[in-house]
């Protein structure tokens, strides 16, 4: 229980990650898989942000005087998440474009019905 | 009521409006009067005004008059108080165990002419909880009302739109 209390952020983030992975592994509708991917990416980004948390920390911006470096949260995960979000957007965009094509070609988005290629 | 029907007049006035609005927003955002901030704001506002003033020309913004400005400020306060009142009203209806609601869609007519005035009216109605503007067709507003008190057009208009309309009429006409 103490784990949950201390690590509420991690619990939330990994909850999203596991939900996303579960959707991606079990659902067979391509749009649902894309939704799962989106949830997964959100979870990963939240996890990265939580890694940089510092108790009672502020945003790492010297916007006013009186903000000291010690009180700032870790800026690195925020920078990483910025990059990860952009990459996630790129992957999602590709996935959606492929969904449009998939539907035009096969008339369905159910991957079980799409069996052009076999082992 | 296409925007193109409005005669293209006052292009200088609309450009000036756009420029002033942009400059004010820039000042609020930057929150500083340093030279480089002012200069960059000036340049960006001028550029945007140059390329996009056509957008504003079709809005039909009126000439600036003291009476209009005063009415507009009054209108903002009326809107705020209406929003607060409507909030309490909706909260009461939601929390009441019997849920005294009577949802329905009604049509009300407006006498406002300019597109921008109609849109401000529609948005004010949407902002007050309980009423929601779905669409505008010519001079008719399609409104979803959480508690339809009257299906008669004039009565509904009195309850919903008139309190805003009288100010907007002065502002825009």
């Amino acid at each position, binding site marked *: 229980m103490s784990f949950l209390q*201390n690590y509420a952020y991690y619990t939330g983030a990994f909850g999203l990650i596991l939900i996303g992975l579960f959707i991606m592994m079990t659902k067979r509708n391509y749009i649902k898989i894309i939704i799962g991917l989106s949830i997964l990416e959100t979870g990963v980004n939240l996890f990265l942000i939580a890694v940089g948390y510092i108790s009672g920390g502020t945003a790492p911006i010297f916007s006013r005087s009186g903000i000291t470096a010690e009180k700032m949260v870790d*800026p690195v995960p925020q920078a990483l998440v910025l990059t990860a979000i952009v990459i996630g957007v790129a*992957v999602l965009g*590709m996935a959606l474009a492929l969904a449009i094509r998939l539907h035009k070609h096969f008339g369905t988005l159910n991957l079980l019905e799409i069996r052009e290629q076999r082992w | 009521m296409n*925007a193109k029907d409005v005669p293209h007049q006052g292009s200088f006035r609309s450009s000036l409006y756009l420029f002033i609005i942009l400059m004010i927003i820039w000042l609020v955002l930057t929150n500083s009067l340093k030279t480089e901030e002012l200069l960059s704001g000036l340049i960006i506002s001028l550029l*945007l005004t140059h390329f996009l003033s056509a*957008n504003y020309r079709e809005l039909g913004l009126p000439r600036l008059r003291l009476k209009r400005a005063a009415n507009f400020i009054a209108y903002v306060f009326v809107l705020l108080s209406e929003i607060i009142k409507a909030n309490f009203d909706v909260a009461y209806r939601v929390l009441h165990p019997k849920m005294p609601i009577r949802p329905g869609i009604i049509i009300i007519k407006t006498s406002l002419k300019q597109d921008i005035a109609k849109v401000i009216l529609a948005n004010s109605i949407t902002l007050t909880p309980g009423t929601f503007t779905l669409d505008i067709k010519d001079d008719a507003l399609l409104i979803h009302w959480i508690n339809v008190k009257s299906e008669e057009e004039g009565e509904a208009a009195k309850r919903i739109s008139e309190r805003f309309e009288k100010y907007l009429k002065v502002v825009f006409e």
Partner: protein
Amino acid sequence: MKKGVSIILLLILLWGVVAALSEMPFGKAKLEVAGHYTDYGKEDTGAANIVTSVVLGYRGFDTLGEVTVLFLACIGLAVVLSTLKKQGCGARQTPSLILNTGFRFLFPLILLFGTYVFMHGHLSPGGGFQGGAVIASGFVLMYLSVPKIKRLNHFVSTLFESVGGLIFLVIGLIGLKLGSQYFLNNFLPNGEFNTLLSAGIIPVIYIAIGFKVGSELSKIIDVLLEESE
């Protein structure tokens, strides 16, 4: 069956992650690298926003990759959708007056806000990507409200896209040639701290990125919208 296997796999993942996390400090003081950034980021890059100094200063190379990824997504989307045969444009509902008028009123203001966000990336939370996204949202509003009017000018958007990326690279290469021979080296003066004209090359790069991201995201929406019509 499939669900059972995936639940078992996910439980293994969860178990491993819990094991790893329980040894990980949470909410404690920053370690060496992050501490260096918050302590010396001001002097090293001149940016008041330490995240920006990490994004474009210490880890600028990542951002080059990031810009490339977005460019790539734009091109990849066009490739995936390019060979589709154009079908007859389905009749789209004419947008309502509210949307149309709202667009006319808000479009310049959205562009202004986007410009503000990417110009002040080194001073406030924001930057090229965020500002670009704000600008692209303005274009989305345009697509929704004015159908069949001429869309984004492809010539201009291509130009913004390429030139924005090239400015980033060229600034990097200038840094390689001038002075200390490092790629992406800051060759401009840092200026007075916490003013618009500070932090050397960071605002320049962010403005280039802002234009690039704005035109790229708009183009992505444009391509997707063209298909759905």
